[in-house]
């Protein structure tokens, strides 16, 4: 039995893909956990985002240089074309990362919902209901998820603006200190984290083949700029509104939403939680969909829709166990934030593929190359 994905390659617009990635990234912003993200807080974070913005451009040069030569293909397809072995290896690596990100999303969702919103709710049942909904979204396919993302992004931006207005009365600029207070080393460390935690760039590298027109660079520019602006604004709000109080909160950004409640809404967090549930569904669905694709690459699409269900069960298992054993949860975080997935798949893999391409070109045209070298 074939999935919708296998009947035909879904085609989405560049704006839809940008919206999908921005939304997926906003999941982390909303339930930011300072203890597990190894992040630095305060004013340092604001400068780090700006430095990290430019650092990401530098690091992504090999990837976009490679993809420019293969318009309409994603990174895994390029790897498969240049070397079937590297193609299989990259599919396995992408599969692992996507499964881990999907599991982390489900675990985060469950953890947040059962600690900040419904402390008495069962983590197991929350996980099951969530995973069932995610599976349904994956079943609908990428086009449906992308269309939903555009609507959700508009709702998220609108509610964020309302939140911002509600927070204005709490802004205290005394909380802003020099971003270099802890030295340049802290800023550079935090900037490198900005890249390593930008896991949506992996989804971007895998979804480029679904674009109607090959405009990967445009999607990257749009996604990266908008997310950086949002992050700077959110960090500014967190620093100036919460100050040192933010250090005592497990979900500081969620606290901002609670504070922003005006007399009209009383506690604005209810609306935000509603939007965030939808955002988490989209994020988990995207990575589960990508994991299913990568498993298909490895297994030859033999199991049809069953691959989707198997991955869903795997995600449920990992997330349920990691919510119960917080050390596993931290381990998942540490793996994702360590830089291994990002540097390995978005820097080393493109460099390796560029080398393979150069070697293939050299083998095909040894004479031309040697003449060129002499000249």
């Amino acid at each position, binding site marked *: *039995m074939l999935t919708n994905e296998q009947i035909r390659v879904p085609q989405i617009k560049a704006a839809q893909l940008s919206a999908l990635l921005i939304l997926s990234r906003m999941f982390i912003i909303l339930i930011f956990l300072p203890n597990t993200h190894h992040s630095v807080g305060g004013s340092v974070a604001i400068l780090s985002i700006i430095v990290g913005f430019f650092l990401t451009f530098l690091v992504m040069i090999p990837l976009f240089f490679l993809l420019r030569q293969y318009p309409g293909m994603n990174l895994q397809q390029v790897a498969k074309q240049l070397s079937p072995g590297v193609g299989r290896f990259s599919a396995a690596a992408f599969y692992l990362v996507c499964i881990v990100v999907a599991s982390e999303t489900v675990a985060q969702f469950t953890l947040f919902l059962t600690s900040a919103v419904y402390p008495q709710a069962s983590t197991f049942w929350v996980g099951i209901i969530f995973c069932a909904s995610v599976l349904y979204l994956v079943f609908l396919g990428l086009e449906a998820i992308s269309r939903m993302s555009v609507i959700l992004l508009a709702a998220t931006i609108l509610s964020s603006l309302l939140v911002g207005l509600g927070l204005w009365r709490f802004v205290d600029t005394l909380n*802003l200190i020099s971003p270099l*207070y802890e030295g340049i080393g802290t800023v550079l460390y935090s900037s490198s984290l900005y890249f390593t935690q930008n896991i949506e760039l992996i989804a971007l590298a895998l979804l480029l083949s679904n674009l109607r027109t090959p405009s990967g660079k445009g999607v990257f520019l749009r996604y990266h700029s908008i997310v950086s602006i949002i992050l700077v604004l959110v960090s500014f709000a967190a620093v100036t509104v919460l100050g040192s109080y933010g250090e005592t909160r497990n979900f500081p950004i969620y606290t901002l939403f609670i*504070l922003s409640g005006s007399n009209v809404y009383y506690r604005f967090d209810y609306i935000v939680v509603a939007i965030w549930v939808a955002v988490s569904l989209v994020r988990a669905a995207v990575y589960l969909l990508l994991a299913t694709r990568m498993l298909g690459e490895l297994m030859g699409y033999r199991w049809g829709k069953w691959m989707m269900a198997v991955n869903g069960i795997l995600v449920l298992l990992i997330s349920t166990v990691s919510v119960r054993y917080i050390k596993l949860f931290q381990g998942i975080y540490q793996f994702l934030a360590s830089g291994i997935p990002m540097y390995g798949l978005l820097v080393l893999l493109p460099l390796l593929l560029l080398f393979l391409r150069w070697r293939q070109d050299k083998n095909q045209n040894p004479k031309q190359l040697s003449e060129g070298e002499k000249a």
Partner: protein
Amino acid sequence: MRKISGIFLALLIVLLPLCLTGCMNAAELKERTIIKMVGVDMDGEEYLLTMLQFSPQAQSGEKTSESQSLVIQTKGRSISEAVDQVSHYNGNKVFFGNSSFLVVGEKAAEQGLEGVLNFFNSNHEVSPELYVVMAQGQAEEVIRAQSGEGSTPTQLKSMVQQGQKNGLLGRPTLKDVMNRLQSDRAEPYLPLIETVSSENEEKKLKISGMAVFRDGKLKDTLSIEEAKGVLWATDELARAIITVDFGEDKASRASVELDNSKTKAKVRLERGKPVLDLSIQSEGSVHEVSFDRGGGTEIGELEEIQNEVAGQIKETVQHTIDKVLLEEKCDVFRYSEFIKKYEPEYWKENQQDWDKVIDQMTINISVDCRIDHPGLESKHFQVDSKAT
């Protein structure tokens, strides 16, 4: 295969509607003990919690929403333990989502605010906007005064709101107090509330000043006038009435309402020592003028009144800073954060010797007062004075 996918679809149909069931573990109103105010005292080594419970009396279909407040008192080695004992009364779940006040007793404040506030800071139902005040004596007295006949839990709220408007109170919410407790050297302050007996022996609440803390523990209490000095120095004063004597031999008296005050603090280093320049700008209007033979004022007299008001503000702020910062070494003004922000290198080197930094600090206060409304009353004399 078709059969299996049918089962899968059936499972989805069964599971997905579960998402539409709304709140999980929902509790009915009657299953909740809704707490409006909490008072925390110390009884030996144990926390003594006095809670004002909201108890709706209106039945279904009734138009009135008359409510009765009940007082619950429990004890425990921790606040969680004391809260847990509330369920021994009626088996209900305690709900803090509607709590708007936390009253800390004097002994509990002496032991340290952090121990008291940790429970409320980590409780998901409690708003960061929970207002924290200190009782002069036992917090229990304040809570019981609120539960008395004719009292409603909103009275304290109205009192505090008016107090804020009149420049008697700052804004020490849970968020603000925790922020200061987490800071390097800044200290929290809390409005001070006391109970007084009226003529008919009824207990009433009264704002009596401000409590200042050092290392999170109660250090001293300030009068209302000194509390105004703190709020002026921290740019938190919304409104104030000042009465000054002016004219020849200071025989005339003017009351001025200041409704627009702005305080700016700047820190600089002078010969390696911190200098704090505090600039206060106030605007207001004359409310009342009286002198021995009449009342009212003339435009020409405004400058003299302005100077007197500015002088009094400066004196109040100077006295408060001398007492709280220089003598008690309590940085309720957050000046340590100004030093950290504007002179970070100096702060890194000297933050461990904060007491020494305070001793070396020079504080310059400048007050600029502008009174451009002489009020509705023009200068006039009493009839018998005119005749002579």
